[in-house]
């Protein structure tokens, strides 16, 4: 077997095998062709050399030789598997909105307004995201925790302070009045405009 053929074969094998291949495994693979260990080693060295500056490189890891992508390409390649972000639930949005606009506020307050219990996972998510934190306790029986928004929250929404939060239409009546809806729409438009500027 010509060294050129052996090189192509080893190259192909290393790109196809599910696991890294050791020098020993390669020598055994080419037993029918009577390939020597020295030849295998020579080919492996040449291949390492050939792929030095390429997008994939031949590396010798604990379990043998394998081709792997260049370290520097990590970020660009990881985009292949980037998922689209999920969406937060309405319950989470309302909880966050209440904390933002009515802080400091207890879970009980939120539950009272929303008419449903606040799930612990929502509070956990908001805390993990760094958007809310406990700033104290209300001095009533049970001493419920008081929640407030954080500086990260302001940063995320590009706000200097809470006074920059958009105005909220008063829920004066049971059902939404037409002009109320119009107002909300206007706010959204305004919001978009500012977003685009930034």
């Amino acid at each position, binding site marked *: 077997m010509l060294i050129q053929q052996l090189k192509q074969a080893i190259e192909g094998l290393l*790109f196809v095998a599910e696991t890294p291949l050791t020098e020993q495994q390669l020598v055994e693979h080419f037993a029918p062709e009577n390939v020597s260990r020295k030849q295998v080693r020579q080919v492996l060295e040449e291949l390492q050399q050939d792929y030095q500056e390429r997008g994939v490189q031949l590396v010798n890891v604990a379990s043998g030789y*394998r*081709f*792997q*992508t260049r370290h520097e*390409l*990590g*970020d*660009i*390649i*990881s985009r*292949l*598997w*980037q*998922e*689209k*972000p*999920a969406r*937060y639930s*309405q319950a989470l*949005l*309302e909880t*966050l*909105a209440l904390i*933002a*606009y*009515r*802080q*400091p506020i207890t879970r009980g307050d939120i539950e009272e*307004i*929303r*008419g449903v219990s606040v799930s612990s996972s929502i509070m956990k998510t908001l805390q993990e995201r760094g958007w809310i934190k406990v*700033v*104290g*306790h*209300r*001095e*009533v029986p049970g*001493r419920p925790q008081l929640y*407030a928004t954080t500086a990260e929250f302001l940063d995320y*929404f590009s*706000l200097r*302070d*809470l*006074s920059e*939060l*958009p*105005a*909220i*239409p*008063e*829920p*004066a*009546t*049971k059902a939404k009045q037409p002009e109320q809806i119009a107002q*909300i729409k206007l*706010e*959204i438009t305004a*919001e978009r405009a500012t*977003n685009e500027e930034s």
Partner: protein
Amino acid sequence: MGVAQQQSLPLGFVRGEPVIEKPEDLYIPPDALELILETFAGPMDLLLYLIRRQKLDIVELPILPITQQYMEYVEMMKDLKLELAADYLVMAAMLAEIKSRMLLPRAPTDEEDEEDPRAELVRRLQEYEAIRQGAEHLESLPQAERDYFLAQAATEARELVAAPLPEIALHELALALSQALAQAALLNSHQVQREKLSTRERMSRILDLLQQNQRLRFRDLFDPREGKAGVVVSFLAILELVKEALIEVVQVDTFSEIHVTHRDSIYADSTT
């Protein structure tokens, strides 16, 4: 078709003998007839084989000798594997029909519209031969896992994929509040006082400061840089916090330093 060929089916080719002419160039032993059968992909394949064996042109399809040879094979098949031979029998019938039509003297009147009875079969044979070529081409094309394998490299990039956090736009937040409040309005009537907002933020900030320091000097809660409005907001926030019993404002003596403490710290020992 059925009845017409029944009588023209020449039983004489077989002579009812179990010993049949051994196919000359089939490498399969003559007793392994099932295997012979399976070497052909169908009646067209067999027909094509017979034509080729005699190095004949399909277009000149020599219907008499081919029909004879074909029948011999069909007889062998019939004895062994009847269901599989059904397709071969259809072809036999077709051959017999063509043969009988060719043997019939042609009426001179309908000469112009009388097509060669072999034409349709020749067309099918040609097409079948083309498809066999196509099948050979496919067989010779590089096939995955036989001729080539997909090349894959390992990568550490997968570990870099972070589940992206959901995004919220500010207007969604405003909308969410108005929805929550609309809900609240149905339950009872909560007061929304937007002008208090900055006061409430200041309340949060003061509480936050008190988390870090148990005691704060009252005057440290005011930042002169904020101007009069800022001072008023801070003052209102402190009053609100006192009202909500969240902080205590302590002055030991008249004109001495006023301190603000978290109610937490006062009760800390008793509650934990």
